């Protein structure tokens, strides 16, 4: 559990460009945002000037540079629609960094990444960190259609091997990414130097977690849950784990798949 500082800061929009179907990359300048942020952590953004919509929205740190941070987001409702309307120079109020990120042990040599749809968001930051640690990376990345597969060239340039799937077959294998994952995963040997990192729809995480668990392989999944505070105070975002209900915003969003009660995993999502 981290006790690094959390800050409420006013960030400035320096970029907010479409990168795919209703998907944008928001670049924020925020000099007072704590430098301690780690991959897998998230921020809570205010997405209105008034009280409707009222609650903040949670977004993974897509990336974090000195004095700036990035968010990769899809417009799915009113809050994200508000975000898509921000222009360079506009102010955005955010709180972070929040939650527990991915754990990268010194023994780690090979990382298997699994992303479904917008689950790709936290991976750029993670990939940069893994690369710095000299870890080999293989990414299973699935989406509905080719246009939803984001930042492929960038990830290849970062030395990530890609295995792609789309539901409509427009790029990579046709079908769900979990099918592709299951095929290839059979060939991998469990080892201390090996770990799976997954982010995406909860059904996908369930599948990946089940497979990893079956073979006692270290696996971390990043969950979503409706959040009021994002800070750990409201107890609203809990998910069932072997240690009882735990807060996705505080003990998570990254959880060891081993400790989740996978049958109940879908509950927190609704």
């Amino acid at each position, binding site marked *: 559990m981290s006790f690094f500082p959390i800050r409420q800061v006013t960030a400035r929009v320096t970029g907010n460009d479409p990168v795919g179907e209703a998907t944008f990359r928001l670049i924020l300048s925020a000099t007072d945002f704590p430098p301690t942020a780690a991959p897998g952590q998230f921020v809570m953004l205010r997405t209105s000037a008034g009280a409707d919509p009222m609650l903040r929205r949670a977004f993974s740190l897509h990336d974090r540079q000195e004095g700036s941070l990035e968010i990769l987001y899809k417009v799915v409702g009113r809050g994200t629609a508000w975000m898509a309307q921000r222009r360079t120079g506009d102010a955005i109020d955010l709180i972070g960094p929040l939650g527990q990120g991915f754990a990268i042990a010194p023994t780690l040599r090979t990382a298997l990444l699994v992303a479904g749809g917008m689950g790709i968001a936290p991976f750029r930051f993670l990939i940069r960190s893994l690369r710095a640690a000299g870890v080999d990376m293989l990414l299973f990345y699935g989406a509905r259609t080719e246009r939803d597969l984001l930042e492929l060239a960038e990830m290849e340039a970062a030395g990530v091997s890609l295995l792609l799937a789309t539901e409509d077959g427009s790029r990579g294998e046709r079908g769900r990414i979990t099918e592709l994952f299951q095929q290839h995963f059979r060939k991998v040997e469990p080892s201390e130097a090996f770990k799976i990192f997954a982010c995406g729809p909860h059904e996908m995480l369930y599948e990946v977690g089940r497979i990893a668990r079956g073979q006692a392989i270290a696996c971390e999944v990043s969950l979503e849950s409706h959040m009021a505070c994002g800070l750990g105070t409201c107890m609203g975002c809990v998910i069932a784990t072997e240690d009882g209900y735990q807060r996705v915003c505080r003990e998570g969003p990254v959880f060891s798949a081993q400790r989740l009660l996978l049958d109940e995993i879908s*509950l*927190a999502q609704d």
Partner: protein
Amino acid sequence: MNVSKSAPELSVEIAGIRMKNPVLTASGTFGYGEEMAQIYDLSQLGALTVKGLSLRPQTGNRPPRICETPAGMLNSIGLQNIGVEAFVRDKLPFLRRIDTRVLANIYGHSAEEYAAVAGILDGADGVDGIELNISCPNVKKGGMAFGTDRAETGRVVRLARKATGLPLIVKLSPNVTDITEIARAAEGEGADALSLINTLLGMAVDIDRKKPRLSRGVGGLSGPAIRPVALRMVYQVSRVTELPVIGMGGIVCAEDAIAFLLVGASAVSVGTANFVDPLCPLEMITGIEAYLKEHGHTRVQELVGALEMEQV
């Protein structure tokens, strides 16, 4: 308009508890303080109220537990908490180090259980007062059932009163026809202060799944949406009781806080706004001070109940 020069007096005394200012944080929206302490120095607060404590740890309700509504939210946490003993052992030491007042919000499944929890806290170093939550809409037994009935309210307060010498604050439910009746029942059995309002019972529906958005169906409505109701009830209650009132419900800024003081609250408590704007209690303190200066007041106490009503 008089502009006073020296800094106005912000401290208040409620139920014998002296607080450095009238801005508190509300139960269930501030955890046990630890998380918020990562964001700012909690000693700036008048007081903080911890999440509702019960005799034994509670797992709470199944998720989903929250959902957003217009200018508000519904919650059905179901009082997930670590239990009063773990609180005293694991959380109080941290809270004792903070130079602010700590109010322990408690609830029970029976009047006897309320008394038992109050009794355990009676000896606990670091608890400045007890807030009886007789108004939680999110548990089957206990909670709101007590706070919507005059006799039940009286009994809970009476037993808790016997169990502790600590200042006793009774937290009222807005889900009643006449809140002044319940207020008087609490006063009659020895409450030292009243706090209101708790959440309004509400519901939201996911029309695609044809299911309620909360697993329990109903939940408690909080946030700016309920502020007009809260303000009206604080106004009504403070006119019929001698007890100090802690006002809450949708307070998000200094202007809101001042409105509650004007209708009769002696202090205010910030709930849902802690989620949306964690620093807002601090801005409220500054804002109240600025208002006092601008209006030529020397003490925050002068605002309490200072509303001018035309005859109705």
